[in-house]
């Protein structure tokens, strides 16, 4: 991405040099310098933001947070074998019998603040489901979620908050619609299903420093007649009704893009230490910043979100939903380095996750916005308790997740941790050759989402509208982590 930006900058510079000073003036360079972060008082008193961090590929929750009591640790180590994280290496969590993977050390201060909560064995469900019910369910029974263990389908179930893999809209998008937020879900990680509503796509913003705008057609460029005429022609092209539906969808996206780039282009462009940057945010991200650049993809995304939250009045609306993501969690192989369980792919991934979440939490806390922002993880599925022959794990179902933020009732675990027994009460498997430890969730995505959205401001009827299967869980609609 840095390469991209450098190319853009150098080519733009070359173009400007060639085109002479008139054009440069017409392009209105330097507008970034005019941007100042809005003072905090500019935000609405009831401002709230939800930040989803999706861990694509299926994070191994069993190695993310590990039970530390002797009985369960021994069960864990017995099955996980070489993949087990040594007990002494775990980040201790005061007050509970669990420890975090050592790569998540940056979250220790959040736990100490009482603002971090793990939620155990969460996953897509249509209704509460026991192993006996699961085993007895007829093929394609509505009581069992669609296409279990498939990446794309289980991502869709998590992002849509349903048990139906054909669902078109995400629970974030539907919440934005139900609560009539000013903006759709704002994504710094692509057009994920989470942010789709029946009428809107998520607003996708590029990373810090990128140009979010059409060169030559931004407001300051239009004082020069040829640019203004080009823009008029572009507007006419995109106002024209199309003969195909997808053409109309395209022109709507183009019109919307111009509107949003005018509002947010300058803010998107701010980089650590650059014009308009917040010293508070930059200080929090300093551990993952080198020479003015954030060093990890998730760090870049959360830096961008921190700026948008700090400038929430510019972004508009007192309720904002954000979406970020990290990929690479599909650790079928090389999850650890053989003989060295603290090294390997998963350790590297969790380091990226923990450091970025820690920086983001600190930034918001120090901006005085901690209570207004709740961050939570989602992921395709958990991974098999049993390991495969490639020092990895395969696709499973229920998983451990993390919620953090000033409003979180942290310092406790929520939901119920699965019984760590292959073929046990939580394992879908029955026959000896399929006992892999794929946990049937004991908390539904619906309940997890309802807890988050309830805090965000959704009424009970709104929750039912956004999460159509929530009603199947009776009075157990929410957990207590918020």
């Amino acid at each position, binding site marked *: 991405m840095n390469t991209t930006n450098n190319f853009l900058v150098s080519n733009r510079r070359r173009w400007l040099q060639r085109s002479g000073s008139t054009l440069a003036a017409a392009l209105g360079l330097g507008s970034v310098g005019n941007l100042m972060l809005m003072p905090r008082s500019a935000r609405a008193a009831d401002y709230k933001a939800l930040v989803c961090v999706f861990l694509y590929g299926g994070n191994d929750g069993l190695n993310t947070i590990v039970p530390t009591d002797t009985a369960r640790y021994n069960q864990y180590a017995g099955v996980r074998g070489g993949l087990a994280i040594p007990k002494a290496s775990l980040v201790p969590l005061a007050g509970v019998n669990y420890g975090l993977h050592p790569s998540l050390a940056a979250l220790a201060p959040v736990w100490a603040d009482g603002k971090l909560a793990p939620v155990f064995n969460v996953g897509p469900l249509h209704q509460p489901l026991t192993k006996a019910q699961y085993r007895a369910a007829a093929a394609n029974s509505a009581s069992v979620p669609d296409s279990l263990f498939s990446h794309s389908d289980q991502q869709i179930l998590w992002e849509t908050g349903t048990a139906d893999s054909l669902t078109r809209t995400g629970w974030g998008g539907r919440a934005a619609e139900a609560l009539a937020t000013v903006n759709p879900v704002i994504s710094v990680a692509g057009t994920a*299903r989470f942010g789709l509503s029946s009428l809107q796509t998520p607003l996708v913003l590029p990373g810090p420093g990128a140009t979010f705008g059409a060169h030559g057609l931004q407001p300051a460029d239009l004082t020069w007649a040829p640019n203004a005429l080009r823009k008029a022609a572009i507007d006419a092209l995109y106002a024209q009704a199309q003969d195909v539906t997808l053409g109309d969808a395209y022109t709507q996206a183009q019109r919307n893009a111009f509107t949003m780039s005018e509002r947010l282009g300058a803010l998107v462009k701010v980089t650590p230490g650059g014009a308009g940057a917040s010293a508070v945010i930059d200080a929090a991200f300093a551990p993952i910043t080198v020479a003015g650049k954030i060093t990890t993809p998730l760090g870049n995304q959360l830096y961008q979100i921190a700026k948008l939250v700090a400038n929430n009045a510019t972004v508009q609306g007192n309720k904002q939903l954000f979406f970020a993501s990290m990929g690479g969690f599909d650790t079928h192989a090389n999850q650890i380095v053989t003989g060295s369980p603290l090294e390997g792919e998963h350790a590297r991934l969790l380091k990226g996750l923990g450091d970025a979440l820690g920086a983001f939490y600190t930034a918001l806390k120090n901006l005085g916005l901690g209570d207004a922002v709740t961050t939570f993880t989602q992921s395709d599925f958990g991974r098999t308790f049993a390991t495969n022959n490639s020092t990895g794990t395969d696709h499973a179902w229920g998983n451990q997740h993390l919620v953090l933020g000033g409003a979180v009732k942290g310092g406790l675990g929520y939901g119920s941790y699965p019984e760590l027994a292959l073929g046990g009460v939580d394992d879908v498997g029955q026959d000896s050759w399929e006992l892999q430890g794929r946990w049937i969730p004991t908390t539904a995505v619906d309940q997890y989402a309802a807890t988050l959205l309830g805090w965000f401001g959704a009424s009970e009827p709104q929750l039912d509208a956004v999460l159509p299967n929530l009603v199947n869980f009776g009075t157990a609609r929410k957990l207590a982590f918020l």
Partner: protein
Amino acid sequence: MRLADQGSFGPTEALVASIKAQGPTAWVTAQMALKTSSYTSGQGGAVHQYTGSGEFCADKGANCWRDWSSTQPLVWDFYRNAVTQPDQLRQRVAFALQQIVVVNNLEVDGTYGFRNYYNNLLDNAFGNYRQVLKKVALSPVMGDFLNNANNDKAAPNENFARELLQLFSLGTCELNADGTLKGGACSATYSNDVVRSYAYALTGWTYPAGGATPYGCWPAGMNCRYYGGDMIPVASFHDTAARTLLAGVTVAAGTTAPAALEKVLDSLMAHPNIAPFVSKQLIQHLVGSNPTPAYVARVASAFTTGKYGSFGSNQKGDLAATVAAVLLDAEARGDSVTRSAGKLREPAQTFAGVLRALNGKTDGDALAWWWGESLRQHVFRPPSVFNYYPPDYPVPGTALVGPTFGIHSANAALERLNYLTYLLDWGGSTPDANVPNALGTSVDLSAFLSDAADATKLVDRLSLLALGQALPSGPRTEVINAVSWWTSARDSANWQVNRVKTAAYLVFASPNYQVLR
């Protein structure tokens, strides 16, 4: 005109004339006979044979990773071929196939291995889908990517087996012959124990001989990582229990790994899903995102019978018959389009398409890490085995799907315009001395200067080239206005070329170009 967009990387004035002269069937026939493209750039297998001390790249200069490990040399070949080689249809079909049987250079390294993989897809573009799947299953690049290389019966890794079923052949829901869901809802094609049966049946393969490392290779009895050739069987790692596969196919106890692979392929080719599953995706890549069920059924029938008119071998899975059915169907060829027709042009189609139309040239170097990343289609680096976008991505505000909309957004919308600014106003990229046989990336507008004096004629000529027709009258007037601003009085040296630039920018930025009909 539509055929040029469906069967090539975009119309040129010469290509449109050629299709008109030959007629669609003859053009498709002639295209299938051509094979002028292949991947040749980049270095060889020594990167997986290095036993010296220190790093392999230590004495190989700053471009070592690029030339030995990455897919960047193949990007050069890809875009050079897309812009200039005549076997356009073969390239488009191979590009579609590489988005179905996906590998990527994020998790696997080795330029020569990818070169083999993608040359196989070019070779088999009009061959048989069974052979495509067989080469994919035996590919050491795929074996490494989805962990089927060195997969051991003792605790089989399910990764390749699952995606072979889900993404490369059948999909997770049972289909009717017209690609619609059986019973109108998702009825599972297979259960998890079936995935595990396939995983067992596919154990017992390792890399071809030839690899080496300074520290030996693991596990014992298996070859070192090496991508030169097909994977080879290792009996001691192969599960020999009896396994029940789909479509009534079973693997008998004691079956060898190569024979079990044939059984796996038998079961996939015999399954009712494979014809509509593959056919619909080929339509979506070549023609439109929302084909009618009847169109899918006609193409699926060609896949199943292996015959379409004069095309095909009568073998199930024949891709010449299938591709001919995709392109020569009334729904692809008809002059009037329905509301649900069309497809958002893929970024790679746009990159190559504008260059082709405007007599441009490219070495592809700028179209990967720069423009490919900006528009989220960096060729050979899709984010995962799930490609750049899903085939069923829903388009909000409509009842339709639009796979390419899965990477479209407010930012991408503006970057599509910025790509035109780059080509037309920034002059593209100059040749980079670090790129072998560098061409840079640029358009040549000289052919259009002759019409610059007449803004209307210029705009209509470019519209005919890019869209096959004039722009709608309202926007057309605004475009002509913008073009006409440039006069000899305002800029005596550059007014004509500035007219061509303005006209080209607006025509290629138009929704009529960006969304294929």
